[in-house]
Protein backbone atom coordinates (compact mmCIF):
# COMPACT_ATOMS: atom_id res chain seq x y z
CA UNK A 1 0.00 0.00 0.00
CA UNK A 2 1.31 3.39 -0.96
CA UNK A 3 -0.02 6.61 0.58
CA UNK A 4 2.47 8.90 -1.10
CA UNK A 5 1.53 11.18 -3.97
CA UNK A 6 3.61 10.89 -7.12
CA UNK A 7 5.99 13.64 -8.15
CA UNK A 8 3.53 15.14 -10.63
CA UNK A 9 0.67 14.89 -8.15
CA UNK A 10 2.77 16.86 -5.64
CA UNK A 11 3.71 19.33 -8.32
CA UNK A 12 0.14 19.91 -9.47
CA UNK A 13 -0.85 20.59 -5.86
CA UNK A 14 1.89 23.15 -5.41
CA UNK A 15 1.27 24.79 -8.78
CA UNK A 16 -2.51 25.00 -8.40
CA UNK A 17 -2.18 26.19 -4.80
CA UNK A 18 0.18 28.99 -5.86
CA UNK A 19 -2.19 29.97 -8.66
CA UNK A 20 -5.29 29.72 -6.43
CA UNK A 21 -3.77 31.80 -3.64
CA UNK A 22 -2.33 34.52 -5.85
CA UNK A 23 -4.91 34.79 -8.61
CA UNK A 24 -8.20 33.30 -7.43
CA UNK A 25 -8.35 33.98 -3.68
CA UNK A 26 -8.38 37.80 -3.95
CA UNK A 27 -11.39 37.57 -6.28
CA UNK A 28 -13.39 34.91 -4.43
CA UNK A 29 -15.15 37.30 -2.03
CA UNK A 30 -15.94 40.03 -4.56
CA UNK A 31 -17.19 37.49 -7.15
CA UNK A 32 -19.48 35.95 -4.52
CA UNK A 33 -20.75 39.39 -3.57
CA UNK A 34 -21.40 40.36 -7.22
CA UNK A 35 -22.81 36.92 -8.17
CA UNK A 36 -20.61 37.16 -11.25
CA UNK A 37 -17.59 35.11 -12.22
CA UNK A 38 -14.50 36.81 -13.61
CA UNK A 39 -13.78 34.72 -16.70
CA UNK A 40 -10.29 36.14 -17.11
CA UNK A 41 -9.53 33.46 -14.50
CA UNK A 42 -10.88 30.86 -16.91
CA UNK A 43 -8.44 32.05 -19.57
CA UNK A 44 -5.56 31.73 -17.14
CA UNK A 45 -6.69 28.25 -16.14
CA UNK A 46 -6.98 27.28 -19.80
CA UNK A 47 -3.43 28.49 -20.42
CA UNK A 48 -2.20 26.34 -17.53
CA UNK A 49 -4.06 23.32 -18.85
CA UNK A 50 -6.52 23.07 -15.95
CA UNK A 51 -9.50 22.80 -18.31
CA UNK A 52 -8.65 19.32 -19.60
CA UNK A 53 -6.63 17.63 -16.87
CA UNK A 54 -7.71 13.97 -17.24
CA UNK A 55 -7.86 13.76 -21.04
CA UNK A 56 -5.12 12.49 -23.37
CA UNK A 57 -2.78 14.96 -25.02
CA UNK A 58 -4.11 14.00 -28.47
CA UNK A 59 -7.33 15.79 -27.46
CA UNK A 60 -5.46 18.78 -26.03
CA UNK A 61 -5.77 17.41 -22.49
CA UNK A 62 -2.97 17.35 -19.95
CA UNK A 63 -2.83 13.55 -19.94
CA UNK A 64 -2.93 13.44 -16.16
CA UNK A 65 -4.72 10.99 -13.91
CA UNK A 66 -7.92 11.49 -11.95
CA UNK A 67 -6.02 11.89 -8.68
CA UNK A 68 -4.32 14.95 -10.23
CA UNK A 69 -7.74 16.19 -11.33
CA UNK A 70 -9.16 15.76 -7.80
CA UNK A 71 -6.16 17.59 -6.33
CA UNK A 72 -6.64 20.50 -8.74
CA UNK A 73 -10.37 20.83 -7.93
CA UNK A 74 -9.56 20.55 -4.22
CA UNK A 75 -6.93 23.28 -4.35
CA UNK A 76 -9.12 25.66 -6.37
CA UNK A 77 -12.09 25.04 -4.03
CA UNK A 78 -9.89 25.64 -1.02
CA UNK A 79 -10.01 29.33 -1.87
CA UNK A 80 -13.08 29.55 -4.14
CA UNK A 81 -15.77 26.89 -4.43
CA UNK A 82 -17.28 28.61 -7.49
CA UNK A 83 -14.00 28.09 -9.34
CA UNK A 84 -13.95 24.47 -8.21
CA UNK A 85 -17.39 23.73 -9.61
CA UNK A 86 -16.67 25.65 -12.82
CA UNK A 87 -13.80 23.26 -13.56
CA UNK A 88 -15.58 20.22 -12.16
CA UNK A 89 -18.84 20.62 -14.11
CA UNK A 90 -16.94 21.50 -17.29
CA UNK A 91 -14.56 18.55 -17.02
CA UNK A 92 -16.62 15.77 -15.43
CA UNK A 93 -20.10 16.55 -16.71
CA UNK A 94 -19.47 17.71 -20.27
CA UNK A 95 -15.98 16.90 -21.54
CA UNK A 96 -15.91 13.46 -19.91
CA UNK A 97 -19.10 11.98 -21.46
CA UNK A 98 -17.93 13.24 -24.86
CA UNK A 99 -14.56 11.61 -24.24
CA UNK A 100 -16.14 8.37 -23.00
CA UNK A 101 -19.07 7.99 -25.39
CA UNK A 102 -18.34 10.30 -28.32
CA UNK A 103 -17.31 9.33 -31.83
CA UNK A 104 -13.88 10.40 -33.08
CA UNK A 105 -15.54 13.25 -35.04
CA UNK A 106 -17.39 14.42 -31.93
CA UNK A 107 -14.19 14.32 -29.89
CA UNK A 108 -12.31 16.37 -32.48
CA UNK A 109 -15.14 18.86 -32.82
CA UNK A 110 -16.10 19.21 -29.14
CA UNK A 111 -13.63 17.58 -26.74
CA UNK A 112 -10.59 19.34 -28.24
CA UNK A 113 -11.94 22.89 -27.70
CA UNK A 114 -13.29 21.91 -24.27
CA UNK A 115 -10.05 20.38 -23.06
CA UNK A 116 -7.97 23.29 -24.36
CA UNK A 117 -10.34 25.70 -22.62
CA UNK A 118 -11.40 27.50 -25.80
CA UNK A 119 -14.93 26.42 -24.94
CA UNK A 120 -16.74 25.91 -21.62
CA UNK A 121 -18.98 22.88 -21.05
CA UNK A 122 -22.14 22.04 -19.09
CA UNK A 123 -24.56 19.16 -18.59
CA UNK A 124 -28.34 19.54 -18.83
CA UNK A 125 -30.03 16.75 -16.88
CA UNK A 126 -32.19 18.14 -14.04
CA UNK A 127 -35.75 19.29 -14.75
CA UNK A 128 -38.41 20.82 -12.50
CA UNK A 129 -39.96 17.41 -11.93
CA UNK A 130 -36.89 15.25 -12.55
CA UNK A 131 -34.31 15.85 -9.81
CA UNK A 132 -33.22 12.74 -7.95
CA UNK A 133 -35.61 10.86 -10.23
CA UNK A 134 -33.42 11.73 -13.20
CA UNK A 135 -34.86 8.98 -15.39
CA UNK A 136 -38.17 10.74 -15.73
CA UNK A 137 -36.95 13.63 -17.88
CA UNK A 138 -39.70 15.26 -19.93
CA UNK A 139 -37.56 17.18 -22.41
CA UNK A 140 -38.31 15.41 -25.68
CA UNK A 141 -36.20 14.73 -28.74
CA UNK A 142 -38.00 13.67 -31.90
CA UNK A 143 -36.14 12.58 -35.00
CA UNK A 144 -37.24 14.58 -38.03
CA UNK A 145 -35.21 13.84 -41.13
CA UNK A 146 -31.55 14.30 -40.24
CA UNK A 147 -32.26 16.32 -37.13
CA UNK A 148 -33.60 15.78 -33.65
CA UNK A 149 -36.12 18.36 -32.51
CA UNK A 150 -35.75 19.20 -28.81
CA UNK A 151 -38.55 20.63 -26.67
CA UNK A 152 -38.61 21.21 -22.93
CA UNK A 153 -36.55 22.86 -20.23
CA UNK A 154 -33.72 22.09 -17.84
CA UNK A 155 -33.16 23.82 -14.50
CA UNK A 156 -30.31 24.50 -12.08
CA UNK A 157 -27.74 24.05 -14.85
CA UNK A 158 -24.22 24.77 -13.61
CA UNK A 159 -22.22 26.90 -16.08
CA UNK A 160 -25.56 27.65 -17.79
CA UNK A 161 -25.48 30.61 -20.19
CA UNK A 162 -21.66 30.86 -19.88
CA UNK A 163 -21.00 27.45 -21.41
CA UNK A 164 -20.60 27.00 -25.15
CA UNK A 165 -21.25 23.26 -25.35
CA UNK A 166 -24.03 21.37 -23.55
CA UNK A 167 -24.66 17.68 -23.11
CA UNK A 168 -28.45 17.38 -22.90
CA UNK A 169 -30.37 14.33 -21.70
CA UNK A 170 -33.77 14.04 -23.39
CA UNK A 171 -36.50 11.46 -23.90
CA UNK A 172 -36.75 9.97 -27.39
CA UNK A 173 -39.45 7.47 -26.50
CA UNK A 174 -41.69 8.25 -23.54
CA UNK A 175 -43.22 4.75 -23.51
CA UNK A 176 -39.84 3.22 -22.60
CA UNK A 177 -39.15 5.40 -19.53
CA UNK A 178 -35.45 5.85 -18.82
CA UNK A 179 -34.63 3.26 -21.50
CA UNK A 180 -36.12 5.70 -23.98
CA UNK A 181 -33.63 8.49 -23.26
CA UNK A 182 -30.66 9.79 -25.23
CA UNK A 183 -27.78 12.24 -24.79
CA UNK A 184 -27.17 15.07 -27.27
CA UNK A 185 -24.42 17.61 -27.78
CA UNK A 186 -26.01 21.02 -28.24
CA UNK A 187 -24.10 24.19 -29.07
CA UNK A 188 -24.99 27.56 -27.60
CA UNK A 189 -26.55 29.66 -30.33
CA UNK A 190 -28.50 26.80 -31.90
CA UNK A 191 -31.87 28.32 -32.92
CA UNK A 192 -34.57 27.38 -30.41
CA UNK A 193 -32.06 27.04 -27.55
CA UNK A 194 -32.32 29.94 -25.09
CA UNK A 195 -31.68 30.68 -21.44
CA UNK A 196 -34.41 31.25 -18.89
CA UNK A 197 -34.11 32.29 -15.31
CA UNK A 198 -30.78 32.91 -13.59
CA UNK A 199 -30.81 31.35 -10.13
CA UNK A 200 -29.85 33.44 -7.11
CA UNK A 201 -28.30 31.01 -4.71
CA UNK A 202 -27.24 30.65 -1.09
CA UNK A 203 -23.67 29.70 -1.99
CA UNK A 204 -21.33 29.19 -4.96
CA UNK A 205 -22.84 32.50 -6.01
CA UNK A 206 -20.20 33.30 -8.62
CA UNK A 207 -21.05 30.07 -10.40
CA UNK A 208 -23.56 30.67 -13.16
CA UNK A 209 -26.77 28.64 -12.70
CA UNK A 210 -29.43 28.96 -15.38
CA UNK A 211 -32.55 27.44 -16.82
CA UNK A 212 -32.14 26.09 -20.35
CA UNK A 213 -35.12 26.34 -22.70
CA UNK A 214 -35.59 24.29 -25.88
CA UNK A 215 -38.33 25.30 -28.30
CA UNK A 216 -38.25 23.32 -31.52
CA UNK A 217 -34.47 23.33 -31.23
CA UNK A 218 -33.10 21.34 -34.19
CA UNK A 219 -29.94 19.39 -33.40
CA UNK A 220 -28.08 17.53 -36.17
CA UNK A 221 -28.45 13.77 -35.94
CA UNK A 222 -24.65 13.37 -35.71
CA UNK A 223 -24.81 15.17 -32.35
CA UNK A 224 -26.47 12.17 -30.72
CA UNK A 225 -23.96 11.15 -28.04
CA UNK A 226 -23.70 7.38 -27.68
CA UNK A 227 -26.66 5.22 -28.56
CA UNK A 228 -30.28 6.24 -28.57
CA UNK A 229 -31.86 4.63 -25.49
CA UNK A 230 -28.69 4.99 -23.40
CA UNK A 231 -29.16 8.59 -22.26
CA UNK A 232 -29.98 7.74 -18.67
CA UNK A 233 -27.10 5.28 -18.47
CA UNK A 234 -24.69 7.89 -19.84
CA UNK A 235 -26.00 10.38 -17.28
CA UNK A 236 -25.51 7.95 -14.40
CA UNK A 237 -22.00 7.00 -15.48
CA UNK A 238 -21.18 10.69 -15.92
CA UNK A 239 -22.43 11.42 -12.41
CA UNK A 240 -20.29 8.59 -10.98
CA UNK A 241 -17.25 10.53 -12.17
CA UNK A 242 -18.79 13.92 -11.40
CA UNK A 243 -19.08 12.86 -7.78
CA UNK A 244 -15.30 12.66 -7.56
CA UNK A 245 -15.14 16.28 -8.71
CA UNK A 246 -17.78 17.43 -6.21
CA UNK A 247 -16.24 15.35 -3.44
CA UNK A 248 -12.92 17.07 -4.22
CA UNK A 249 -14.68 20.43 -4.18
CA UNK A 250 -16.20 19.64 -0.76
CA UNK A 251 -12.80 18.51 0.50
CA UNK A 252 -11.25 21.77 -0.69
CA UNK A 253 -13.95 23.89 0.98
CA UNK A 254 -13.42 22.01 4.26
CA UNK A 255 -9.64 22.39 4.06
CA UNK A 256 -9.93 26.08 3.25
CA UNK A 257 -12.23 26.72 6.22
CA UNK A 258 -10.00 24.68 8.51
CA UNK A 259 -6.88 26.58 7.43
CA UNK A 260 -8.62 29.89 8.14
CA UNK A 261 -9.90 28.69 11.51
CA UNK A 262 -6.51 27.31 12.56
CA UNK A 263 -4.76 30.55 11.64
CA UNK A 264 -7.36 32.68 13.41
CA UNK A 265 -7.36 30.54 16.56
CA UNK A 266 -3.66 31.27 17.01
CA UNK A 267 -3.97 35.06 16.77
CA UNK A 268 -7.36 35.71 18.34
CA UNK A 269 -6.91 36.36 22.05
CA UNK A 270 -9.55 36.09 24.76
CA UNK A 271 -8.97 36.00 28.53
CA UNK A 272 -5.41 37.07 27.80
CA UNK A 273 -4.32 34.18 25.61
CA UNK A 274 -4.87 32.79 22.12
CA UNK A 275 -8.15 30.89 21.85
CA UNK A 276 -6.17 27.92 20.46
CA UNK A 277 -4.80 27.39 23.99
CA UNK A 278 -8.25 26.37 25.21
CA UNK A 279 -8.92 22.66 25.14
CA UNK A 280 -12.51 23.04 23.94
CA UNK A 281 -11.20 24.69 20.82
CA UNK A 282 -8.30 22.30 20.39
CA UNK A 283 -10.73 19.38 20.31
CA UNK A 284 -12.74 21.12 17.63
CA UNK A 285 -9.61 21.58 15.53
CA UNK A 286 -8.59 17.95 16.07
CA UNK A 287 -12.00 16.67 14.96
CA UNK A 288 -12.04 18.96 11.93
CA UNK A 289 -8.58 17.85 10.79
CA UNK A 290 -9.43 14.18 11.34
CA UNK A 291 -12.62 14.31 9.29
CA UNK A 292 -10.86 16.20 6.50
CA UNK A 293 -8.11 13.59 6.35
CA UNK A 294 -10.68 10.77 6.21
CA UNK A 295 -12.53 12.59 3.42
CA UNK A 296 -9.28 13.10 1.51
CA UNK A 297 -8.47 9.39 1.62
CA UNK A 298 -11.94 8.50 0.31
CA UNK A 299 -11.75 11.07 -2.49
CA UNK A 300 -8.27 10.05 -3.64
CA UNK A 301 -9.20 6.39 -3.45
CA UNK A 302 -12.25 6.85 -5.67
CA UNK A 303 -10.09 8.77 -8.17
CA UNK A 304 -7.41 6.09 -7.95
CA UNK A 305 -9.92 3.31 -8.68
CA UNK A 306 -11.13 5.22 -11.72
CA UNK A 307 -7.53 5.53 -12.90
CA UNK A 308 -7.02 1.78 -12.43
CA UNK A 309 -10.08 1.04 -14.55
CA UNK A 310 -11.77 -0.62 -11.59
CA UNK A 311 -15.41 -0.10 -10.51
CA UNK A 312 -15.70 3.13 -8.54
CA UNK A 313 -19.42 3.89 -8.37
CA UNK A 314 -19.75 2.91 -4.70
CA UNK A 315 -16.48 4.57 -3.68
CA UNK A 316 -17.24 7.81 -5.50
CA UNK A 317 -20.67 7.91 -3.80
CA UNK A 318 -19.00 7.28 -0.41
CA UNK A 319 -16.42 9.98 -1.10
CA UNK A 320 -19.06 12.49 -2.16
CA UNK A 321 -21.34 11.66 0.78
CA UNK A 322 -18.60 11.83 3.38
CA UNK A 323 -16.69 14.80 1.96
CA UNK A 324 -19.83 16.95 1.52
CA UNK A 325 -21.08 16.24 5.04
CA UNK A 326 -17.53 16.89 6.28
CA UNK A 327 -17.50 20.24 4.44
CA UNK A 328 -20.80 21.30 6.02
CA UNK A 329 -19.66 20.24 9.48
CA UNK A 330 -16.18 21.72 9.26
CA UNK A 331 -17.34 25.06 7.84
CA UNK A 332 -19.98 25.33 10.57
CA UNK A 333 -17.27 24.75 13.19
CA UNK A 334 -14.99 27.24 11.44
CA UNK A 335 -17.67 29.93 11.71
CA UNK A 336 -18.05 28.97 15.39
CA UNK A 337 -14.32 29.41 15.99
CA UNK A 338 -14.47 32.87 14.40
CA UNK A 339 -17.48 33.70 16.60
CA UNK A 340 -19.31 36.89 15.67
CA UNK A 341 -16.62 37.79 13.11
CA UNK A 342 -17.23 34.45 11.39
CA UNK A 343 -20.83 35.41 10.79
CA UNK A 344 -19.83 38.56 8.93
CA UNK A 345 -18.57 38.92 5.37
CA UNK A 346 -15.30 40.35 6.70
CA UNK A 347 -13.94 36.80 6.84
CA UNK A 348 -14.20 34.04 4.20
CA UNK A 349 -15.59 31.30 6.47
CA UNK A 350 -19.10 32.74 6.14
CA UNK A 351 -18.91 32.25 2.36
CA UNK A 352 -17.37 28.81 2.78
CA UNK A 353 -20.24 27.67 5.02
CA UNK A 354 -22.78 28.84 2.43
CA UNK A 355 -20.75 27.18 -0.34
CA UNK A 356 -20.51 23.87 1.53
CA UNK A 357 -24.27 23.24 1.59
CA UNK A 358 -24.63 22.69 -2.15
CA UNK A 359 -22.14 19.82 -2.07
CA UNK A 360 -24.72 17.82 -0.08
CA UNK A 361 -27.30 18.49 -2.77
CA UNK A 362 -26.04 18.63 -6.34
CA UNK A 363 -24.81 15.74 -8.47
CA UNK A 364 -26.92 13.50 -6.24
CA UNK A 365 -28.13 14.47 -2.77
CA UNK A 366 -26.65 12.77 0.27
CA UNK A 367 -29.78 10.61 0.30
CA UNK A 368 -29.16 9.53 -3.31
CA UNK A 369 -25.52 8.73 -2.43
CA UNK A 370 -26.78 6.43 0.31
CA UNK A 371 -29.12 4.76 -2.18
CA UNK A 372 -26.18 4.24 -4.57
CA UNK A 373 -23.97 2.85 -1.80
CA UNK A 374 -26.71 0.56 -0.47
CA UNK A 375 -27.56 -0.66 -3.96
CA UNK A 376 -23.91 -1.60 -4.43
CA UNK A 377 -23.82 -3.38 -1.08
CA UNK A 378 -26.99 -5.33 -1.70
CA UNK A 379 -26.54 -6.35 -5.32
Amino acid sequence: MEFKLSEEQEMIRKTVRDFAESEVAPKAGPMDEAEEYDYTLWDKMAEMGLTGIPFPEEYEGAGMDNVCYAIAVEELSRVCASTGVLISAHTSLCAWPIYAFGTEEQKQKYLVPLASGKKIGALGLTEPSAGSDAGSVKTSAVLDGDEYVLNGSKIFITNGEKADIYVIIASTDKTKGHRGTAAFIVEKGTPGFTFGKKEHKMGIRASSTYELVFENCRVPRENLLGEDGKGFKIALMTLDGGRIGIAAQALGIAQGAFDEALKYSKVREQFGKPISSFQGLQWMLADMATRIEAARLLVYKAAYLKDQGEPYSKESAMAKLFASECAMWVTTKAVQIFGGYGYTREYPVERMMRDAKITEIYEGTSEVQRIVIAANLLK
Partner: protein
Amino acid sequence: MKILVCLKQTFDTEAKIVLDENGKIERQGVSLIMNPYDEFAVEEALRLKENQGEGEVTVISVGGQQTQDALRQALAMGADKAVLVDPGDVELDEYSTATILAKVISGMEYDIILGGFRAIDDGSAQVAGRVAEILNIPVVNMITKLEVADGKAVATREIEGGSEVVEVPLPAVLTAQKGLNEPRYPSMKGIMKAKKKPMQKMTLADVGLEEGQIAPKVKAISFSLPEPRKAGKIIPGEPAEAARELARLLREEAKVV
Protein backbone atom coordinates in the same frame (compact mmCIF):
# COMPACT_ATOMS: atom_id res chain seq x y z
CA MET B 1 21.49 30.11 -28.05
CA LYS B 2 22.64 28.27 -24.94
CA ILE B 3 21.18 29.78 -21.80
CA LEU B 4 22.22 28.71 -18.33
CA VAL B 5 20.31 29.59 -15.19
CA CYS B 6 21.81 29.15 -11.73
CA LEU B 7 19.15 28.61 -9.16
CA LYS B 8 18.91 27.91 -5.46
CA GLN B 9 16.31 26.21 -3.36
CA THR B 10 15.41 28.31 -0.35
CA PHE B 11 13.01 28.28 2.58
CA ASP B 12 9.47 29.27 1.77
CA THR B 13 8.96 32.99 2.32
CA GLU B 14 6.28 32.10 4.88
CA ALA B 15 8.42 29.51 6.68
CA LYS B 16 8.85 30.04 10.39
CA ILE B 17 12.56 30.09 11.19
CA VAL B 18 13.63 28.39 14.40
CA LEU B 19 17.05 27.46 15.79
CA ASP B 20 17.86 23.90 16.88
CA GLU B 21 19.62 23.00 20.12
CA ASN B 22 23.03 23.67 18.51
CA GLY B 23 21.96 27.17 17.56
CA LYS B 24 21.79 26.27 13.86
CA ILE B 25 18.80 26.99 11.65
CA GLU B 26 16.35 24.08 11.86
CA ARG B 27 15.73 22.70 8.37
CA GLN B 28 13.40 19.85 9.33
CA GLY B 29 9.80 20.24 8.25
CA VAL B 30 10.35 23.54 6.45
CA SER B 31 8.74 23.80 3.05
CA LEU B 32 11.17 24.72 0.32
CA ILE B 33 10.72 26.78 -2.81
CA MET B 34 12.76 28.02 -5.74
CA ASN B 35 14.41 31.30 -4.71
CA PRO B 36 11.94 33.90 -6.09
CA TYR B 37 14.71 35.97 -7.74
CA ASP B 38 15.91 32.83 -9.52
CA GLU B 39 12.35 32.30 -10.71
CA PHE B 40 12.62 35.66 -12.52
CA ALA B 41 15.85 34.39 -14.09
CA VAL B 42 14.21 31.16 -15.27
CA GLU B 43 11.30 33.11 -16.74
CA GLU B 44 13.68 35.49 -18.53
CA ALA B 45 15.64 32.56 -19.93
CA LEU B 46 12.45 30.99 -21.30
CA ARG B 47 11.38 34.30 -22.84
CA LEU B 48 14.80 34.74 -24.42
CA LYS B 49 14.56 31.30 -25.95
CA GLU B 50 11.01 31.95 -27.17
CA ASN B 51 11.93 35.34 -28.65
CA GLN B 52 15.02 33.96 -30.37
CA GLY B 53 12.92 31.12 -31.75
CA GLU B 54 15.60 28.63 -30.81
CA GLY B 55 17.88 27.77 -27.96
CA GLU B 56 18.28 25.63 -24.92
CA VAL B 57 17.73 26.47 -21.29
CA THR B 58 19.71 24.52 -18.71
CA VAL B 59 19.09 25.04 -15.01
CA ILE B 60 21.89 24.32 -12.55
CA SER B 61 21.86 24.05 -8.80
CA VAL B 62 24.15 23.07 -5.96
CA GLY B 63 22.30 21.32 -3.17
CA GLY B 64 20.97 18.13 -1.67
CA GLN B 65 18.65 15.66 -3.39
CA GLN B 66 15.54 17.62 -2.37
CA THR B 67 16.82 20.45 -4.59
CA GLN B 68 15.51 18.37 -7.48
CA ASP B 69 12.06 19.78 -6.65
CA ALA B 70 13.17 23.31 -7.50
CA LEU B 71 14.92 22.11 -10.66
CA ARG B 72 11.86 20.07 -11.63
CA GLN B 73 9.73 23.18 -11.25
CA ALA B 74 11.99 25.02 -13.69
CA LEU B 75 11.70 22.08 -16.09
CA ALA B 76 7.89 22.20 -15.73
CA MET B 77 7.99 25.91 -16.54
CA GLY B 78 9.78 24.98 -19.77
CA ALA B 79 13.52 24.63 -19.16
CA ASP B 80 15.12 21.86 -21.24
CA LYS B 81 17.48 20.18 -18.82
CA ALA B 82 18.72 20.31 -15.29
CA VAL B 83 22.04 19.71 -13.59
CA LEU B 84 22.27 19.10 -9.86
CA VAL B 85 25.59 19.01 -8.06
CA ASP B 86 25.14 17.38 -4.68
CA PRO B 87 28.33 18.11 -2.72
CA GLY B 88 27.25 15.84 0.11
CA ASP B 89 27.21 16.75 3.75
CA VAL B 90 29.65 19.68 3.68
CA GLU B 91 29.47 23.30 4.78
CA LEU B 92 29.30 25.74 1.90
CA ASP B 93 29.76 29.45 1.67
CA GLU B 94 29.38 31.74 -1.34
CA TYR B 95 32.94 30.97 -2.39
CA SER B 96 32.31 27.20 -2.30
CA THR B 97 29.04 27.40 -4.23
CA ALA B 98 30.47 29.75 -6.85
CA THR B 99 33.54 27.54 -7.25
CA ILE B 100 31.38 24.48 -7.88
CA LEU B 101 29.05 26.31 -10.26
CA ALA B 102 31.91 27.84 -12.24
CA LYS B 103 33.63 24.48 -12.51
CA VAL B 104 30.48 22.80 -13.87
CA ILE B 105 29.73 25.69 -16.21
CA SER B 106 33.28 25.79 -17.58
CA GLY B 107 32.64 22.34 -19.02
CA MET B 108 29.46 23.47 -20.78
CA GLU B 109 28.59 25.58 -23.79
CA TYR B 110 26.93 28.87 -22.93
CA ASP B 111 26.05 32.23 -24.42
CA ILE B 112 24.44 33.77 -21.40
CA ILE B 113 24.16 32.95 -17.70
CA LEU B 114 21.24 34.17 -15.63
CA GLY B 115 20.44 34.00 -11.94
CA GLY B 116 18.65 35.87 -9.21
CA PHE B 117 20.61 38.85 -7.88
CA ARG B 118 20.31 37.36 -4.42
CA ALA B 119 18.76 34.48 -2.53
CA ILE B 120 16.09 35.28 0.00
CA ASP B 121 17.68 33.12 2.70
CA ASP B 122 21.23 34.38 3.27
CA GLY B 123 20.78 37.41 1.02
CA SER B 124 24.49 37.78 0.36
CA ALA B 125 24.14 38.54 -3.39
CA GLN B 126 27.60 37.16 -4.10
CA VAL B 127 27.37 33.86 -5.95
CA ALA B 128 26.54 35.06 -9.46
CA GLY B 129 29.21 37.76 -9.35
CA ARG B 130 31.81 35.29 -8.13
CA VAL B 131 30.89 32.85 -10.91
CA ALA B 132 31.42 35.60 -13.48
CA GLU B 133 34.76 36.48 -11.90
CA ILE B 134 36.00 32.89 -11.99
CA LEU B 135 34.82 32.47 -15.59
CA ASN B 136 36.36 35.85 -16.42
CA ILE B 137 33.22 37.24 -18.08
CA PRO B 138 31.24 40.44 -17.42
CA VAL B 139 28.46 40.60 -14.83
CA VAL B 140 25.50 42.95 -14.76
CA ASN B 141 23.57 42.96 -11.51
CA MET B 142 19.94 43.69 -10.63
CA ILE B 143 18.56 43.90 -14.13
CA THR B 144 14.94 44.87 -14.74
CA LYS B 145 15.02 44.65 -18.54
CA LEU B 146 17.03 42.59 -20.99
CA GLU B 147 17.48 42.58 -24.74
CA VAL B 148 19.83 40.23 -26.53
CA ALA B 149 20.97 40.60 -30.13
CA ASP B 150 24.10 40.20 -32.24
CA GLY B 151 26.21 38.71 -29.48
CA LYS B 152 25.44 41.56 -27.11
CA ALA B 153 23.14 42.07 -24.18
CA VAL B 154 21.57 45.40 -23.38
CA ALA B 155 20.28 45.43 -19.84
CA THR B 156 18.59 48.03 -17.69
CA ARG B 157 19.71 47.85 -14.10
CA GLU B 158 18.71 49.54 -10.91
CA ILE B 159 21.14 52.02 -9.43
CA GLU B 160 20.79 54.38 -6.50
CA GLY B 161 18.00 56.79 -7.34
CA GLY B 162 17.49 55.68 -10.93
CA SER B 163 18.38 53.18 -13.57
CA GLU B 164 21.25 52.58 -15.93
CA VAL B 165 21.40 50.93 -19.34
CA VAL B 166 24.42 48.72 -19.82
CA GLU B 167 25.68 46.95 -22.93
CA VAL B 168 27.93 43.91 -22.53
CA PRO B 169 29.39 41.42 -24.97
CA LEU B 170 28.26 37.83 -24.50
CA PRO B 171 28.87 35.56 -22.78
CA ALA B 172 27.99 37.38 -19.60
CA VAL B 173 26.31 36.83 -16.26
CA LEU B 174 23.14 38.84 -15.61
CA THR B 175 21.25 38.82 -12.34
CA ALA B 176 17.53 39.39 -12.03
CA GLN B 177 15.83 41.98 -9.86
CA LYS B 178 12.11 42.08 -9.10
CA GLY B 179 10.27 43.74 -11.97
CA LEU B 180 12.19 41.94 -14.71
CA ASN B 181 9.11 39.86 -15.53
CA GLU B 182 6.14 38.01 -14.11
CA PRO B 183 7.09 34.32 -13.88
CA ARG B 184 4.63 31.89 -15.48
CA TYR B 185 2.95 29.05 -13.63
CA PRO B 186 4.06 25.63 -14.80
CA SER B 187 1.41 24.24 -17.15
CA MET B 188 -0.11 20.80 -16.62
CA LYS B 189 1.55 19.61 -19.83
CA GLY B 190 4.79 21.13 -18.58
CA ILE B 191 4.50 19.14 -15.36
CA MET B 192 3.95 15.93 -17.34
CA LYS B 193 6.90 16.68 -19.63
CA ALA B 194 9.20 17.65 -16.75
CA LYS B 195 9.59 14.11 -15.54
CA LYS B 196 10.88 12.99 -18.93
CA LYS B 197 13.45 15.78 -19.22
CA PRO B 198 17.07 15.04 -18.35
CA MET B 199 18.18 15.67 -14.77
CA GLN B 200 21.91 15.12 -14.51
CA LYS B 201 23.07 14.43 -10.98
CA MET B 202 26.72 14.97 -10.14
CA THR B 203 28.93 14.59 -7.11
CA LEU B 204 31.92 16.78 -6.33
CA ALA B 205 34.17 14.08 -7.81
CA ASP B 206 32.10 14.06 -11.04
CA VAL B 207 32.69 17.81 -11.30
CA GLY B 208 36.41 17.29 -10.73
CA LEU B 209 36.67 18.96 -7.34
CA GLU B 210 37.82 17.79 -3.97
CA GLU B 211 36.38 18.89 -0.65
CA GLY B 212 39.54 20.83 0.16
CA GLN B 213 39.08 23.01 -2.89
CA ILE B 214 35.69 24.22 -1.79
CA ALA B 215 36.38 24.66 1.91
CA PRO B 216 34.41 27.75 3.00
CA LYS B 217 36.30 30.96 3.61
CA VAL B 218 33.59 32.31 5.86
CA LYS B 219 32.44 30.69 9.05
CA ALA B 220 29.13 31.60 10.65
CA ILE B 221 29.83 31.93 14.36
CA SER B 222 26.32 32.17 15.66
CA PHE B 223 22.72 32.72 14.61
CA SER B 224 20.11 34.69 16.45
CA LEU B 225 16.47 35.42 15.76
CA PRO B 226 15.25 39.00 15.49
CA GLU B 227 13.51 40.46 18.53
CA PRO B 228 9.84 39.63 18.35
CA ARG B 229 7.82 42.63 17.28
CA LYS B 230 6.47 44.47 20.28
CA ALA B 231 2.74 44.93 20.56
CA GLY B 232 1.45 48.29 19.31
CA LYS B 233 0.23 50.95 21.67
CA ILE B 234 -3.35 52.16 21.58
CA ILE B 235 -3.84 55.72 22.80
CA PRO B 236 -7.28 56.07 24.38
CA GLY B 237 -9.34 59.22 24.68
CA GLU B 238 -11.04 61.80 22.50
CA PRO B 239 -9.60 62.06 18.96
CA ALA B 240 -8.14 65.53 19.41
CA GLU B 241 -6.48 64.66 22.71
CA ALA B 242 -5.31 61.27 21.48
CA ALA B 243 -3.76 62.89 18.43
CA ARG B 244 -1.93 65.38 20.64
CA GLU B 245 -0.64 62.55 22.81
CA LEU B 246 0.40 60.60 19.68
CA ALA B 247 2.35 63.58 18.37
CA ARG B 248 4.05 63.97 21.73
CA LEU B 249 5.02 60.30 21.86
CA LEU B 250 6.31 60.33 18.29
CA ARG B 251 8.44 63.34 19.15
CA GLU B 252 9.64 62.46 22.62
CA GLU B 253 9.58 58.67 22.83
CA ALA B 254 9.98 57.36 19.32
CA LYS B 255 11.87 60.49 18.21
CA VAL B 256 10.73 60.13 14.61
CA VAL B 257 9.21 63.57 14.08
